[in-house]
């Protein structure tokens, strides 16, 4: 009896573990083609997207998130280290304690490209397929 329960719990654990290890689609952090922003490392990308680093080289950056789960989840999981409700809880804390402003959310890769090409200090992320000649890749995940 005990053995069976333990086995079932282990089974659930393995299933969840497998779920979290699912391969996420690759993507890129991008800025406008002519943006002064240059290549970043993973830590800096994380700091910028979590609102902990608000300006680069004296210019205030505008962070752009995507609305769609399929595009945002890989980025949040691989780069930010917290996704979905966890990230919402993080932002709720930042926003409602006045520590940071809510990031802008746009629709799809096209929305991100439109934003970063029109604002030189905007920074967003797109899927691998969303990278084109209008944007500059500053980090890949």
């Amino acid at each position, binding site marked *: 009896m005990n053995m069976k329960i333990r086995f079932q719990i282990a089974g*659930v654990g393995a299933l*969840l573990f497998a*779920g979290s290890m699912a391969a996420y689609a690759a993507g890129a952090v991008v800025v406008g083609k002519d943006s002064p922003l240059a290549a970043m490392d993973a*830590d800096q990308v994380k*700091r910028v997207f979590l609102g*902990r*680093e*608000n*300006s680069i080289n004296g210019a*205030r950056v505008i962070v752009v998130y995507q609305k769609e*789960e399929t595009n945002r989840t890989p980025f949040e999981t691989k780069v930010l*280290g*917290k996704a*979905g*409700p966890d*990230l*919402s*809880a*993080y932002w*709720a*804390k930042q*926003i*409602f*304690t*006045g*520590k940071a*402003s*809510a990031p802008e959310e746009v629709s799809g890769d096209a929305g991100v490209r439109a934003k970063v090409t029109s604002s030189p200090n905007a920074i967003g992320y797109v899927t691998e397929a969303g990278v084109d000649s209008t944007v500059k890749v500053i980090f890949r995940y």
Partner: protein
Amino acid sequence: VIAFRERKRLIACIGVGVGLVGPTAARADVQFNGFGQVVVGSALGNNQSFPTRTTLYAYSADPSFENESLFGLQAQAPLSDSLSATAQIVASGAPNDLTPPNALYNCGAMGTSQCALSHEDFTPKFTWAYVNWTINDNLSLKAGRQRLPLYHYSDYLQVGEAYPWIRPPVSVYSSPVSNYDGVSLQGQFSAGNWFVQPQIYYGAFDGTIFTSAASFGFKLQNLTGAVFEANYADWFDFRVSYAFAWMGIHGPTVDQLTQEQAQVADAMTSQLSLAALGVDGILSNPGIQGALGAAGYTPQQIAGWMAGMQGFNTAGAAYGAIAQDSVIDHQFISYSSAGIEINKYNFVFDGEYIYQKSPGWVNSLASYYVSLGYHIGHFTPVLTYGRTDSRPGDKATDARLRSNANQAYLADTTSTAAYGAACAAIKTATTQTCSQFNAQLPNSMDNLTPAGTVVNPLTGQTGAALLYMENQILANYSNAIDDYYEFGIRYDVSRNAALKLDYTYYASPLSQTGPTGFYPYQGASHAQLLSAAFVFTF
């Protein structure tokens, strides 16, 4: 084009409406964010309300939706590149006043069945309203109304989306003060995997606060504090804080208490003792003594009554001393805390220890909680244990209050009995009442209306009510231990919404008794609360 212009005007109206922005409103992008929660709770079992002493909630067996349900809306308007204005408005149904049968009584210890609670009725109130100046990437200055960051979750107590429980552990989060008006300087620095956020603030609080025991005016002046929070690689968080202020308590309950005690003290020492001495005079009258002797009363009995009535003086003096000790005005109070939070391998551990050093009869608190949760997909079950240890803020004041209350009670009882016995004897011997004799005296007993003559709601007895109330205060604000055992589960419905369930068992292992001869403190020794919540942000 027209539609666009209309929209701009609407934004400007909203901006001005919340008092945020001036002429730049039309071009400013006002950002709106909101949060809310609907919480229903019921104190299970017998009619014990939950819990009795330390929290702001007062659940009874009847399910209540209004105690903790709330809606918040925040508007942030950029004024320039480095200036912004933020206002946060919260509408809640939280209890905000206590209407006991007699305003003097302390309802907390009796259970709220004795008292009527009134609620906020979801009237919107400003919880934050400040202007923020981003000095540089590392420093920002806020001026205006802000949340008082005494402890880890104080800043966002009402944002249920941001934590796993239905409410941050009540063993620590029971402070009735949540805001201050003033300035704060906040820093944020990154170094490697560390992210550090120091903060200093200065301001004041002046308002009415509500606790499960009473509602009264409360002041914190020259409130000064510092917070240091460090985060390592997003899984380890460490926070320490210290704040101090000069506190004052004023308002109906405490003022009334103090005034009534002073009045009774005055009545006892001057008028009442004179009235007693009036009876004293009657008893000294040779004719009356003769009548009493004829009725079978001995000279020893007469002398005994006369001696007994001297107790009115003792009681009066003790009441006066109690009145003095009840006053809290401009006295030092401090709040310290240390806490850690660990998020690793799907585990969430949270622990915090706080110490509130209070003046006079206000209780000092040494409280903590430890909490462990585990993420299983969308579910996060959480176990929490918390303890509040309340001690008298100032031991000498507390001891003096107890001693005086005891002395007043005993002297009052003895002298009232002696007065009653003497009057009964006089009536038997002379057919005249003390009132009839006293009516001829300038300070007759019947011309007095001692403020202390009120009905004890528990016993229905008149008299000694102030002592009863005093005892409640002493019992509430003295040695007590409150334990909270809690099991909760959070289910993330979506990115921005969650359902939560919580069961809390409350126990107070240290039983309370008042000074000898008083009504013993009958606080709940245990209570249970079952609650469910839906929380969201938008």
